[in-house]
C-alpha cells in the first residue's frame, strides 16, 4: 500500500517537476515586455467599456493612449482627476475640457403637439420615424420610443409622456444616444450649460405654431434681449455660445413659447456691501439692465426687480463690494 502511494507520488512529482522546469525556461525565453503605462492608464479609466472614446473598450483605449494614437483626455466619461492622472502618467500637460452631458432638445410632450395618428407598432424610434415621419406633427420631435434609453450604459435616460429626458447627474457623455437617435434631437453640451434651447425645429414660426405649443418659432427675441451677444439665430433656431453666456436667464424669461430651459431658482442677485462701496459708478456702467442706482461718490444700490444676477457688476467692482447671493 505504502509502496504504491510512494511510486504514484514520485511519478506525478517527476512529471510535474519536468514540466515546471520547461515552463520556467519558456517564461524567460518568451518573455513579452508589456508597457507599464498601459496598466497604469487602464487603472485610471472608469472601466465601463462604453466605447465613447471610439475604441472598443477601455483596454484598447489605454493601449492607444500609451502609443500616442489616442488623445490623453479622449475618454469622455472619466472625471477631471482621472484625466489629470492619465496626463501625469503620460507626462504631458492636462488640457482643460469641460465635461459634457447629453440633452434631448425637444419638450413636445404628447399633450403639447398635434398627433398625426395613433401608433401601436413596435416600440422603436426608427420604425416609428419610417412610418410617415412619425406620429407627431413636427419632424424635429423626439419620438419617445426610447431607443436612446436602451443604448444608455448608465440608465440616465427616462421616457416621460412621449419625450426622453436625460438625467444630468447620471449622464457620462459617451454620445451613444446621440448616434442612436434617428431624429438627431440629442446633442452634447457642457454640463454647466444654462440656459438650454429645448427645441430642434428649423421650421418657420407658422409651421411650428401649427403643430406644437412649445416649439421655437424663430422669433429672435432671445437674441434681441441678450446683453452679451451670446445668441446667434441660424435656420430659425437660436444657438447659444456658452463662452459668452453669463447665465442671466433673460432669454428664457422673454421666450414667448417657453422653449428655453432655465432654472430660475438658481438665479442669483447682486448685493452691494455699503462699507466697501466707494461710489465709483463702475458697476452702474457695467450693468446692462439698469439695475444699479446711485450717484457718483454715493453708495450704490441694486434694484432687485431689475437685477438678473449676471455677474457684470461683480466683475467690474474694484473694491470687491459686490456679492452675488441667492434670492
Amino acid at each position, binding site marked *: 500500500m505504502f509502496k*504504491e502511494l510512494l*511510486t*504514484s507520488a514520485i*511519478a*506525478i512529482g*517527476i*512529471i*510535474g517537476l519536468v*514540466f*515546471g522546469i*520547461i*515552463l520556467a525556461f*519558456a*517564461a524567460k525565453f*518568451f*518573455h*513579452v515586455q508589456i508597457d507599464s503605462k498601459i496598466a497604469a492608464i487602464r487603472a485610471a479609466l472608469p472601466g465601463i467599456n462604453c466605447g465613447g472614446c471610439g475604441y472598443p473598450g477601455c483596454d484598447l483605449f489605454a493601449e492607444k493612449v500609451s502609443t500616442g494614437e489616442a488623445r490623453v483626455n479622449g475618454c469622455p466619461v472619466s472625471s477631471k482627476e482621472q484625466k489629470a492622472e492619465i496626463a501625469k502618467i503620460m507626462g504631458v500637460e492636462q488640457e482643460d475640457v469641460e465635461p459634457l452631458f447629453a440633452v434631448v432638445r425637444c419638450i413636445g410632450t404628447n399633450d403639447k403637439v398635434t398627433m398625426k395618428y395613433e401608433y401601436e407598432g413596435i416600440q422603436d424610434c426608427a420604425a416609428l420615424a419610417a412610418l410617415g415621419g412619425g406620429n407627431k406633427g413636427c419632424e424635429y420631435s423626439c419620438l419617445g420610443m426610447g431607443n436612446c434609453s436602451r443604448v444608455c450604459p448608465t440608465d440616465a435616460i427616462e421616457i416621460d409622456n412621449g419625450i426622453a429626458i436625460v438625467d444630468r447627474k447620471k449622464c457620462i457623455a459617451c454620445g451613444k444616444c446621440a448616434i442612436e437617435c434617428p431624429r438627431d434631437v440629442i446633442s452634447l453640451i457642457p454640463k454647466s450649460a444654462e440656459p438650454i434651447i429645448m427645441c430642434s425645429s428649423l421650421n418657420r414660426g407658422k409651421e411650428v405654431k401649427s403643430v406644437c405649443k412649445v416649439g421655437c418659432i424663430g422669433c429672435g427675441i432671445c437674441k434681441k434681449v441678450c446683453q452679451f451677444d451670446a445668441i446667434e439665430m441660424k435656420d430659425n433656431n437660436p444657438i447659444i455660445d456658452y463662452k459668452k453666456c453669463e447665465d442671466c436667464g433673460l432669454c428664457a424669461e422673454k421666450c414667448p413659447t417657453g422653449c428655453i430651459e432655465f432654472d430660475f431658482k438658481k438665479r442669483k442677485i447682486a448685493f452691494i456691501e455699503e462699507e466697501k462701496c466707494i461710489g465709483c459708478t463702475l458697476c452702474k456702467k457695467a450693468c446692462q439692465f439698469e439695475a444699479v442706482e446711485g450717484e457718483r461718490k454715493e453708495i450704490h444700490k441694486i434694484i432687485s426687480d431689475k437685477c438678473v444676477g449676471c455677474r457684470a457688476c461683480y466683475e467690474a467692482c474694484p473694491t470687491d463690494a459686490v456679492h452675488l447671493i441667492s434670492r
Partner: protein
Amino acid sequence: MTGFTKIVLIVISAALVNNYVLSRYLGICPFLGVSKKVETAVGMSAAVTFVMVMASVITFLVQDLILQPTWLAKLGVENIPDLRFLQTIAFILVIASLVQFVEMMIQKTNPSLYSALGVYLPLITTNCAVLGVAVINIREGYNLVETVANSFGAAIGFGLAIILFAGIRERLEYSDIPKPFIGFPIALIAAGLMSVAFLGFNGLIG
C-alpha cells in the same frame, strides 16, 4: 491493409466519421464560445491542432515511459509498477503545462492572435476534446505514428466543425430569427442539425 492506408483511414475516421465535436460531443465549450467569427474560429482551431498533436505525443510518451513502464522489463527489473490509474491526472497535468507553453509562445510570436483568442486559450487546458483524444489513443492501443495521425485527424475535424459553424453563425446574425431563439438557442439548434449532417458519414469506412 498496408500501414499507409491505415494511417489515412485513421485520419479520415477521426475527422469525419467520429468527429470529436459532432459525434463524440467533446470540446463543446470552445465550439460554442469561439464560433462567433470565422477569423477567431480559425485561430482557435490552429491552437487546438497544435495542442492536440503535441499533447497526444507527450501523453503517449508519459504513458509508455512512466505510467506503464514495460521498458523496465528489458533492464531486468521485476515487479514493474502499474500506474495506469494515474492516467487522467497525469494527462491533465501534461495538457495544462502544454497550453501554458503555447500561450507564452503565441503571446510572443503573434500578439493579434493572442488577443483574438482571449480567454479561450486557457480554456483549452480543460478542453475535454484534447484529453479525450489522448485517452482514446491509449485505449485503442495505437502506436506513436497512429497516435499522431488520430490526434491530427481529430484536430482537423474540430477545426472543420468550428469553422463551418462560425460561418453559419455569421449568417445567423443577419437572419430574421424569432425573438426567443436569438443567440444561443438558434446556435444550439444549428449545432444539432450539423451533428445530424455529420452522421451521414457513418459507414463511410466500413
